[in-house]
């Protein structure tokens, strides 16, 4: 098949994973009993590999070519025609390559991390669902189908976080992840439904064209309406990207297995950002929406990186950073820099994957996730340590690594266009992230070994190999950017400022956490502040006291009202009407009475009819 054939068959890319999704279930323990479930994983990795190769081939073929659109019919009711448009372009295929590539890596990592797990069928099936969903989302060119995919992924999150369903915190975590994301999704659905009468289309190109028309004045729209619609459309990404105030789920989702966390932190949160970037022209129609977006994004970026700083749990110290970086993407989109947002998604993904993988190997055989009980691993586990450092270098603005180019470019643009506040947000987030990651590094690899880390060899190859390969990719990110022609022209001051902020964070972290005499993880002198941060500004409690409480109370009241007022009224009426009232008691008088009554009623009704 020629490479062009790969382009025209690009719709297969999500389908490979879906084959694996369905196929893996054959190895469920209830179905395949005499042999084990591992082939489910192998099948999945194989299909992912095929998808990856297909993507790369198609990417080569479509390089410098115009985008192609494939349309698959789905539903038509009158003038509502829904076809799934798949846009095949170098950008969407590039996204597919990142998704399938990281999936492959995470799956092989999963072979190692989950080597003793009997739930491979379910686990890899769900990974397949995610992979298929994310590829479809990358290719999908319609807001409506993006919503559809995001919603299915929400269900996927519920099932994937709930993977270890015997564990009580997993159960609550899955619930909260599902419900929080669902809130975002439903607001998005409201936006999706409300935008259609205005634009008559859900395809991103049409939406952008309409937005342009409105900007140009050739179409009009009620400002309040478009603000509300914009807010609805914003809510979806807010939920997916774990932005304040819908950020809690990411923390709780960390109860799931690490291979899933790799994907979640590196690419799944990016799905929201992807939709956000594509909807950017619509958001620009309403200053309110932009304000909200920037506020949410910067609050999450700064707040998330600060909260990460106070976590004692290794996975959570990283999960909040995922929120923080998605916050930066919100800032980039809100200030009109979609290009930088796309690039940040690209440089962020492998770096974040590394940041999760490296501590994952430590957690695997040193058991604890508690940063207070680890340490002193550098000499014995240098490979994972190096991977972590590479991830860290790749995610903060440290030349010449990947995100440096994007973050500095963003800062430069913001600073030069006089948006100093948002530039400051980027700067602070970067510095605090540098500090936070140095802290994690220091607490795991630096210092002296403690009981839990005294015997801690590097782990086996299914985890080490994908991790080192990802490290290679992360190290080559500048070259990749160069090949893609994405290396921006940077000026001296922005470079100095951003590099300086990173170095300041690192230096502070090293001073606090990399000394032989170990600093306490808890900052006694800041105890109250740390509590506030460690508990995520007490948002979980706030939720429990507000939304959850209100829904519970109202539903209890509704049920009671139903039971005693409505039903009571009915019972009372019938008591009065049927003087005996016997019938409404919980009779145990045998069925004879009942039959007689039936027959009487039946005959009476029929007789009534005939007469």
């Amino acid at each position, binding site marked *: 098949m020629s490479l062009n054939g790969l382009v025209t068959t690009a719709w297969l890319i999500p389908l490979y994973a879906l084959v694996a999704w369905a196929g893996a279930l054959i190895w469920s323990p209830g179905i395949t009993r005499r042999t084990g479930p591992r082939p489910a994983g192998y099948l999945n990795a194989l299909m992912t590999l095929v998808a990856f190769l297909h993507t790369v081939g198609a990417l080569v073929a479509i390089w410098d070519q115009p985008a192609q659109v494939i349309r698959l019919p789905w539903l038509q009711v009158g003038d509502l025609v829904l076809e799934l448009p798949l846009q095949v372009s170098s950008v969407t295929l590039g996204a597919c390559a990142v998704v399938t590539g990281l999936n492959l890596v995470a799956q092989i990592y999963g072979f190692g991390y989950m080597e003793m797990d009997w739930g491979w069928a379910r686990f890899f099936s769900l990974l397949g669902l995610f992979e298929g969903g994310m590829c479809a989302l990358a290719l999908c060119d319609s807001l409506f189908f993006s919503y559809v995919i995001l919603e*299915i992924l929400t269900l996927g999150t519920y099932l994937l976080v709930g993977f270890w369903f*015997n564990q009580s915190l997993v159960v609550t975590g*899955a619930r909260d992840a599902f419900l929080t994301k669902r809130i975002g999704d439903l607001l998005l659905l409201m936006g999706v*439904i409300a935008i259609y*009468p205005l634009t008559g289309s859900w395809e991103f190109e049409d939406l952008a064209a309409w937005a342009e028309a409105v900007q140009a004045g050739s179409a009009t729209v009620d400002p309040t309406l478009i603000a509300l619609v914009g807010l609805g459309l914003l809510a979806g990404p807010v939920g997916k990207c774990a932005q304040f105030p819908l950020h809690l789920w990411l923390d709780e989702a960390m109860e799931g297995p690490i291979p899933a966390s790799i994907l979640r932190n590196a690419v799944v949160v990016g799905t929201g950002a992807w939709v956000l970037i594509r909807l950017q022209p619509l958001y620009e129609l309403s200053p309110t929406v932009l304000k909200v977006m920037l506020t949410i994004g910067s609050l999450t970026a700064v707040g998330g990186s600060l909260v990460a700083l106070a976590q004692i749990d290794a996975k959570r110290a990283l999960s909040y950073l995922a929120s923080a970086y998605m916050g930066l993407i919100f800032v980039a989109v809100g200030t009109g820099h979609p290009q930088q947002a796309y690039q940040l998604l690209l440089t962020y993904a492998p770096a974040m994957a590394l940041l999760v993988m490296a501590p994952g190997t430590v957690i695997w055989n040193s058991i604890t996730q508690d940063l207070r009980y680890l340490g002193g691993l550098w000499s014995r586990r240098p490979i994972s340590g190096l991977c972590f450092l590479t991830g860290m270098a790749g995610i903060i603005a440290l030349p010449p690594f990947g995100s440096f180019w994007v973050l500095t470019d963003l800062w430069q643009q913001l600073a030069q266009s006089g948006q100093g506040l948002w530039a400051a947000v980027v700067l602070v987030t970067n510095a605090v992230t540098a500090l936070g990651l140095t802290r994690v590094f220091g607490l795991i690899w630096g210092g002296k070994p403690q009981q839990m880390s005294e015997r801690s060899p590097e782990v086996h190859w299914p985890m080490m190999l994908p991790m080192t390969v990802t490290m290679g990719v992360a190290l080559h990110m500048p070259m990749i950017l160069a090949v893609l022609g994405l290396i921006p022209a940077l000026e001296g001051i922005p470079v100095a400022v951003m590099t300086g902020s990173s170095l300041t964070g690192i230096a502070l972290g090293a001073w606090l956490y990399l000394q032989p005499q170990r600093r306490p993880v808890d900052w006694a002198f800041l105890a109250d502040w740390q509590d506030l941060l460690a508990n995520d500004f007490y948002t979980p409690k706030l939720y429990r006291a507000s939304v959850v409480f209100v829904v519970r109370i109202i539903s209890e009241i509704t049920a009671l009202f139903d039971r005693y007022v409505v039903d009571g009224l009915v019972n009372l009426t019938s008591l009065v009407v049927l003087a005996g009232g016997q019938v409404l*008691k919980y009779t145990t008088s045998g069925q004879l009475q009942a039959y007689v009554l039936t027959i009487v*009623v039946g005959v009476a009704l029929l007789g009534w*009819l*005939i007469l």
Partner: protein
Amino acid sequence: MLSALIVLPILGSLLLFLGLGGRKLAVALAGIPLVILLLLFANFDLQAGGLQWVQRWDWIPSIGLSYSLGLDGLSLLMVALNGLLTLIAVLTAEPEVKRPNLFYGCILLMSGSVNGAFVAQNLLLFFLFYELVLIPIYLLISIWGSPKRDYAAIKFLIYTAVSAIFLLGAFLALYWLGDPHSFELAEIRIASLRPAAQTLLLLALIVAFGIKMPLVPFHTWLPDAYGESSPPVAMLLGGVLSKLGTYGLFRFGLQLFPQAWADLGGILAWWGAIAVLSGALAAIAQKDIKRMVAYSSIGHMGYILLGMAAATPISLTGAMVQMVSHGLILALLFDLVGLVERKVGTRDLNVLNGLLNPLRGLPTVSALLILGGMASAGIPGLVGFVAEFLIFQGSYQDFPLPTLISICGTGLTAVYFVILLNRTCFGRLDNRTAYYPRVHGWERIPGLILTALIVWFGIQPMNLVKWPQPLAFTLSTQVAQAQTLILASAGNLAPVTLSGADPGNWETSRN
């Protein structure tokens, strides 16, 4: 052909009442109508739309009762749903059910009568079937239910009797006030009626059918009736019987009174939204999984009402699709909840735990329960989403606020289903009690069939949507025209957009 759908099951039920057969015969008898249904689907003329296989025989002309049948897209779907769920119900029944012949006989009798109601084109004939259904249903609840079944059965009977009174009253009024005096659906003309009278009659019908659906606040018989009856009966009650109500609203409310309907539209939309919310909220507070599923039904009736209220082609299609979707999903949920109760011995959310366990739990049941719950909560890829989305999309422009509230309702639906799934499927089995019997292969079959349909229609919705579309377009055009009249009479002459609402147009625009 249509008569066969009525007569075969009823004759079958007589066979069973006479003591012939048993489970196998019942399965065969329930299966035969499906063959007829396949023929109906194969020969249904989508281009023509409208009523097909029309037949008429004057039964008792003196009172205007005629055996007059006909079938359009909506009837077709309803008859199909009934046929399918009857078979499923028979398959779901415990093999050791007591008095099997009476049980299966009642189910078949009910199935035949319901079919009669769905294809009847004469008001009295409809009423006859509508009432005939009650006898088997009453027996089914009161003989085979849970401990509180007598209470539930009587309550159900009283409610439906009230419904019957309203219905009969409205029908008689239609006969007397109409011109010409006729019970024949095709002949009834109400244009001469004063708007107030029309509204009054429509309200009577809404109450009559609202009790049957049921609509808040006429719903309190439902948790008891659904909760106390055995799973196959609950399935039929929720899946098919409630559709008699929505079907009636379509056939005799919307179709006969487009103008009054347009008048009441706003109220009905809000009514639907409130039903959605209150059903979902009440469900959240339930501690019994069967009652929780029962309450979910109340909320879902609200969507149908909302879609009907907006009366756009899309929302009406959505409402009709929702009738099927709700029937399938509810039947699946009752089947699974029934299996859980049969195996575990409880429906108490505080006791249930860990059923997803692949070796000791009920893994297939749990997996399907998750799927069913999610379908009910409107997750895309499943049929529930198609229906709800069409309703929302169709209603949004006319009734934005009720639509948005209803969307919130789907969020609340997700809340209680997640509660249900978390408590029932997730978690750990209790080492002291969890020695549950296994689920046999045949016990899974009904659930698997329903799941396959739910998924198939979710992925390929056109297979479902295309059947009721012509009717939806016709009805919405009628309402829209009525609306134009209202607007015109109110002195507002702004033209009303009817784009796509032309029944002749939609078929061509499809290609």
